[in-house]
């Protein structure tokens, strides 16, 4: 198939190929730089390095609370600081794993005198929504995962137990992505972000979906949320939620469960009446008797459809700022002050 006469020619071919890849990668990086997303590992590292007042645990939506944390620090002149730990596409079982395997050693860490190293930590927020309590769907994509917070040892143990599969492969995908962070081709490899940004660049404006596609996607989301009632409150996920609450109580952390805002256009009256109300009710019944605050922001914030990304799920940059400002003025205003139990410690 190929005809290389000698090592010299082969070297020229290899170097030319490599240069071509590097040049194109550099050009892509210059025109559409990779968008760095906060991952669970970043949250863990931030916690390791700091002594925050609030720990936020949640799925990718916890990235919104990173912005909220910045706003809180600004308003309180760094008297109240937040570390958010976003676990991409997590479920409650995955949050528990992250909490007990990665965060607990840092939360409970003590110095040589026996004092807690992170003695300011007084609050914990669990950011969740209805699908976090559904079991993992059979056949669903495996991009989820605690694997984002794994070490090589965690990965090896999971492979030993289950073989390589889509779930634990996420660890390798993440390692591969971050192998050369400066490479647009590699960093964006598993997100198709690069293609989206290139398409935007080519259009000279944001790529918008045709109206019919927008409607179809909205309808699909509405149906999905309405049908969510069939899968919520899975016993394994509920047990994990209970364990997380227990974890916070055992450490006298002031715990709040926040039900994250959804894009208004995706919420029908039926969905509000069924899936979303039942989920909020179930969370309250589990949490409030144990002294946990529950704040349901599913459709009560001023966020509009335009404040959400094209994926219909995540809040965009402008929306994050809007949400942070509003939330600290309203339901999450209590974060600006130190909780009584911590003040008395």
């Amino acid at each position, binding site marked *: 198939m190929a005809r290389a006469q000698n090592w010299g020619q082969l070297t020229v071919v290899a170097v030319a190929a490599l240069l071509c890849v590097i040049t194109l990668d550099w050009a892509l990086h210059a025109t559409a730089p990779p968008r760095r997303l906060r991952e669970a590992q970043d949250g863990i590292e931030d916690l390791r390095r700091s002594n925050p007042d609030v720990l936020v645990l949640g799925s990718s939506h916890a990235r919104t609370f990173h912005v909220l944390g910045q706003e809180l620090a600004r308003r309180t002149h760094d008297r109240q600081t937040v570390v958010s730990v976003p676990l991409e596409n997590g479920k409650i079982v995955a949050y528990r794993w992250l909490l007990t395997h990665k965060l607990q050693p840092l939360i409970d860490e003590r110095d040589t005198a026996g004092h807690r190293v992170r003695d300011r930590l007084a609050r914990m927020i669990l950011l969740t929504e209805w699908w976090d309590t559904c079991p993992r769907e059979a056949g669903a994509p495996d991009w989820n995962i605690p694997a984002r917070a794994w070490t090589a040892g965690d990965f090896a143990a999971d492979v030993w137990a289950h073989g390589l599969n889509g779930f634990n492969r996420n660890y390798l995908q993440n390692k591969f992505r971050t192998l050369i962070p400066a490479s647009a081709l590699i960093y964006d490899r598993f*997100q198709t972000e690069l293609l989206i940004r290139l398409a935007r660049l080519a259009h000279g404006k944001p790529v918008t979906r045709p109206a019919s596609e927008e409607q179809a996607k909205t309808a699909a989301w509405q149906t999905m949320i309405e049908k969510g009632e069939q899968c919520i409150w899975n016993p394994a996920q509920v047990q994990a939620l209970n364990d997380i609450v227990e974890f916070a109580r055992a450490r006298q952390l002031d715990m709040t469960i926040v039900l994250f805002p959804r894009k208004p256009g995706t919420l029908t009256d039926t969905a509000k009446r069924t899936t979303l109300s039942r989920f909020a009710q179930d969370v309250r019944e589990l949490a409030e008797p144990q002294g946990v605050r529950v704040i349901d922001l599913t459709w009560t914030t001023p966020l509009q459809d335009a404040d959400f990304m094209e994926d219909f799920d995540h809040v965009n940059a402008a929306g994050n700022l809007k949400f942070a400002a509003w939330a600290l003025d309203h339901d999450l205003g209590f974060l600006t002050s130190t909780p009584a139990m911590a003040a008395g410690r």
Partner: protein
Amino acid sequence: MSFVEVEFLFFLPLAFIAYWLLPRNRIAQNGWLLLMSWVFYACWNWRLLPLLVGGALLDFGVARRLGALEGSRQGYRRLLLGISLAWNLGALAFFKYVGFFAESFNLMLSAVGLHASVPVLHVLLPLGISFYTLQRLGYVFDVYLGRYPPCRSLLDFLLFAGYFPQLTAGPISRGNELLPQLAEPRGLLPQRLASAAATMLMGYVLKAWIADSVGQTLVDPVFADDASFSTSAHWAAIIGYMVQVFSDFAGYSLIAIGCSLLFGIELAPNFDSPFLSRSLPEFWRRWHMTLNRWLFDYIYGQLSTGRTWLRGRLDLCMMIVFLASGLWHGAAATFVLWGVMHGLGMIVHRRWDEYYRGLCRADRRYVQRRRSAGYAFVSWLLTQGFFLLSLVPFRSQSIAQTGRFFTGLVHSSGADRPDIGITVGISLLLAFGTVILYHLLDLERWRRFRERFFDLPAWVRGAAYGMVVVFLMLFVPVGASTFIYRQF
């Protein structure tokens, strides 16, 4: 582990670099490759590794005894062959077919009004069992028939039975192709390395880009809900599937062949531009070549020339071969139907060929007609059209869906079409164009264009390869790669 998953990007460089840093002797090289092969397998499921190793040990021992007893004690030799057959086919039957036969038996019972049911076991199908079983069986057969002597080195044989580039999905090697290469130390040659890289790159283009993008856009949505889709969508899906299944398996085979070349070991080719074929026999000489030569060597050849009642009954032997091929592909009625279609197709072709040769003997003008462009075109159209239609049961989930899909090719009450925007449309056109070009460049008159590429200056070729790599990184569908033949 598979060649198209991220773990291979970590595994291959490690295997390759350490291999060439080791002393250039057979023990070190084969030992390392065996270790890597077992790691490759164990990453999928280490608990089933003893099945692979145990079977290889048994066949090694059987073949050694067969070699030692050559020309004597035929009864004992037959017994040894029987033991190997029983173990290998028994394992294959247990893991692959036990559920299918139990379900079929239950269906038969209920058809005659009996409701006693046989429990259906659902067992995990060991990775690559259909491939490595045939490879080992072929070896034992060849030693039994005295075609070559048994392998004397256990290390070489264990590697032959579990060599990772071919472990998942072939190509199915013969003992006399692979074992002599394993018996010698390998050197790192630039020619071989260049060939390996180019072969792998072509494999990734076919597998990771074409097969996956065509499958996700044109094929999967229609087969998932065929009743909702229009007649044109049915045609697009089945033509798309023809391209997908070729790109998937030919691409994967090329990656395996290229990967093996990195270690200085040549594997047999598995595809030879099958869409150029003008008859079914030619098609099966070009498509999944190593499986078909196995089936024809060890089943058709043995049955049609053996001492049993089947001797000389060529049609029946042909039907048995394709039924076996169908069942090899999967334990389902749809694969049996696919096998029957191809068995019948081959029989019809053989009869037609005999009839036409009779015409040629009587009138030489028929010879000229057979050489004409028109005859060639009609032959090509019939061959490819037949193969295309035979893919309907091959892809369908059930016989009922097969029937519905065939109906949908003529008339469908559904009106949906695959959701293809302009970008995907262009990508699909490029994908189809690449498969066509891949075949055309194998034609005598077009081959010179391919040769010209390799005559270009080295830096130009390098830049071209670099651009292909960037293209793949940009356009290969993300996170949804499957490999159709892995399930077999």
